[in-house]
């Protein structure tokens, strides 16, 4: 088990709703962005005198730009429906991690400066002046929200805490109090092209290496092209897919599927990142700027379709916002939705029968599937509502004989966040990440004990990285987490692939 400087929660059969522990996570503060990283995103470098008025001005600006913010700040009746729905509350017991209490950090200031009741009867309606303590609370607790939208499923008015925390982060960014993790990463995307800062030549090397690996394993020349003009499909995938485990096994899988489908495809060194952290910081401008790279890459390469790899929030931005932010995509083939998810593509090929699958190759595994929050509650796949739940499961079941779902209150639209989404996947928030994973770990532990589940598949780079890190804290193996296309890759028999026996021999030779 990994070492921890905090108490790792005991897993329970059902995730129980804890009693409040006021201030339990007040100490959790992710690092603040340095001025140079702030300025790269057109934000103020650091906090300056007079920031109080700036906060109020920016809040007023956002209230005029976002109906969600205005309506959500007004409409909450404090019914408490959301109070036991946030994984961070369930895992940390800190009442400020209850969605309504998190919103109230902003709402009490909104009421004080923008509403009649708050201006004249602040105590009555819980309105407070904006002070440094309030701002510090904002910084701490709006960086303890993974913007997973689980609360919005249960709110009778659909109030989405993600919208509030995005607005709060944007206000803090504008006054010079940004978060290091998110803002440094966005800077890297602008400078180099992806979150991990991998330059084009490094990507080429990596992809060549993958081609060699797949050839050694299968005897088939599967290509992993980059910047190939005239290819039909532009694949945009999270940069973790280029080297991290288990992400890269997913990338190998996409390549095999494209190969078997007989379509030409390419990655782009310019748009070598699907992630769009502009959403996490609530910045329309930055989100748009990041999205425009994809449009530019598609135009430069002359592709006909855009397909996104396995990434949760990236798929939300791609599915829900890309057309709005960087469209119209009238230069692409109108036969296909823009963009498409790799699972839509793979499921389509499976239905056409172009893939030769041997399910028994995954017989050593008993799988469960983790619905990623942004895919589940912020996007769709296919033509029917809920396709984001059925299509990934259809693909898994098409390549695995053993599949079990976790408890119904922890999957589909009620899925629990992995604990690391929304710009929190940073080591300075490790305690939060471990504790926030508890509800998912509870559900996973249950299917391990009851159904002998050996592995959990996911389609989000953040989920995969988070689980890799957090599973050991709960005494589980970090390699339990798998990419869905890793499973596809395992089970696919490529045209002309050397037989299993040959394969075994060559593996022995190598060993």
């Amino acid at each position, binding site marked *: 088990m990994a070492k921890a400087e905090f108490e790792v929660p005991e897993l329970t059969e059902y995730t129980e709703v804890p*009693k*409040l522990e006021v201030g339990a996570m007040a100490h959790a503060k992710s690092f603040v962005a340095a001025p140079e990283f702030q300025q790269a995103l057109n934000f103020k470098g650091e906090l300056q005198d007079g920031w109080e008025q700036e906060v109020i001005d920016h809040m007023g600006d956002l*209230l*005029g*730009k*976002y*109906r*969600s913010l*205005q*309506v959500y700040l*007004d*409409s*909450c*009746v*404090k*019914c*408490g*429906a*959301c*109070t036991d*729905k946030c994984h961070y509350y369930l895992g940390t017991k800190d*009442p400020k991690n209850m969605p309504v*209490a998190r919103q*109230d950090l902003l709402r009490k200031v909104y009421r004080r400066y923008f*509403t009649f*009741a708050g201006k004249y*009867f602040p*105590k*009555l*309606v*819980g309105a407070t002046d904006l002070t440094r303590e309030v701002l510090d609370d904002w910084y701490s607790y709006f960086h303890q929200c993974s913007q997973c*939208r689980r609360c*919005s*499923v249960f*709110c*009778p*008015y*659909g*109030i*989405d805490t993600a*919208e509030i925390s995005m607005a709060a982060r944007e206000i803090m960014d504008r006054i010079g109090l940004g978060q290091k993790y998110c803002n440094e990463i966005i800077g890297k995307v602008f400078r180099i092209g992806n979150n991990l800062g991998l330059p084009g030549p490094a990507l080429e090397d990596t992809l060549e290496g993958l081609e060699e690996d797949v050839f050694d394993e299968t005897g088939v020349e599967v290509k992993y092209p980059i910047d190939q003009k005239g290819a039909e499909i532009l694949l945009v995938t999270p940069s973790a897919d280029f080297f991290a485990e288990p992400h890269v096994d997913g990338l190998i899988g996409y390549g095999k599927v494209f190969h078997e489908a007989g379509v030409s495809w390419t990655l782009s060194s310019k748009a070598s990142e699907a992630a769009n952290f502009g959403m996490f910081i609530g910045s*329309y401008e930055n989100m*748009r700027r990041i999205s425009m790279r994809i449009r530019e890459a598609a135009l430069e390469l002359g592709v006909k379709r855009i397909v996104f790899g396995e990434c949760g929030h990236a798929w939300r931005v791609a*599915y*829900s916002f890309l*057309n*709005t932010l960087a*469209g*119209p995509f009238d230069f692409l083939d109108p036969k296909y*939705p*823009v*963009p498409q998810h790799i699972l839509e593509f793979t499921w389509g090929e499976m239905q056409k029968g172009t893939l030769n699958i041997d399910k028994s190759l995954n017989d050593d595994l008993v799988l469960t599937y983790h619905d990623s929050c942004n895919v*589940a*509650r*912020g*996007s*769709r796949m296919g033509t029917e*509502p809920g396709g*984001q739940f059925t299509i990934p499961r259809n693909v898994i079941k098409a390549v695995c004989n053993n599949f079990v779902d976790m408890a119904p209150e922890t999957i589909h*639209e009620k899925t629990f966040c992995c604990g690391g989404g929304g710009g929190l996947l940073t080591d300075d928030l490790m305690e939060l990440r471990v504790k926030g994973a508890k509800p998912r770990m509870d559900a996973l532990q249950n299917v391990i004990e009851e159904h002998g589940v050996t592995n959990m598949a996911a389609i989000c780079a953040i989920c995969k990285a988070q689980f890799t890190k957090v599973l050991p804290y709960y005494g589980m193996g970090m390699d339990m987490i798998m990419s869905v296309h890793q499973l596809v890759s395992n089970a696919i028999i490529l045209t002309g692939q050397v037989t299993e026996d040959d394969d075994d021999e060559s593996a022995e030779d190598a060993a």
Partner: protein
Amino acid sequence: MSFLTIAFVALFYIATLILVVGLARRIRLYWKTPAPLKIPTTPAPTTQSGVALRMFREVVFFESLFKSTKWTWLFGWVFHMALFAVLFRHLRYFQEPVWAPVAFVSPLFKYLAFAMVIGLLGLLARRMLVDRVRYITAPSDILMLLLLLGIGVTGALTTFVAHTDVVAVKSFFRHLMTFNFETMPNVPTDPLMVVHLLLVGVLMIIFPISKLLHAPGVFFSPSRNQVDNPREQRHVSDWAKKLEN
């Protein structure tokens, strides 16, 4: 006219003005404020009629609250539905002749005052007993429930225990509605009726400046009222268009 009657004339004109103008301004604000991105909580309907159905389930059955917590749903739903039924029945105090459906349900719907009060008591109990809900409760949240309880209890008492001169009350409101001050009768002075009318006036006044804005708010909630079609249609707001130039 008695002093009390004059006071109520003033109260109800002012309260109505504040309610109507205040709500209209708020609704206009919600209407005018752009929603620059598609953010329905998915799975979401892919058609406008699907959205109408989703909103209908939300407003009539409190679908999301039902998913969340059964006790809050039970008390909240019972309170709201009873309130609407009782309000509907109250039309008889403003109409001459009384609309047939109102007259028809009247004898039955008057008992729903009890359901309304029970629902409110349940919500109040939950607010005080559940530690999480207590934590998020401001004084105004308690006062709002007490205000509604006051209206419900005084109303029920005038109906079931100490009958008021309801003919005079109705005549007063008919005159008020037609701006006819010459033959306006005095408002009955029994305390239950006075308190009932006073609290209703207060409720009307605070409606547009309180959390009661959830009533119009729910219809403007982007996570509930948007069609899930972002790949088919762009959704660019006016302020975002400026970024494209």
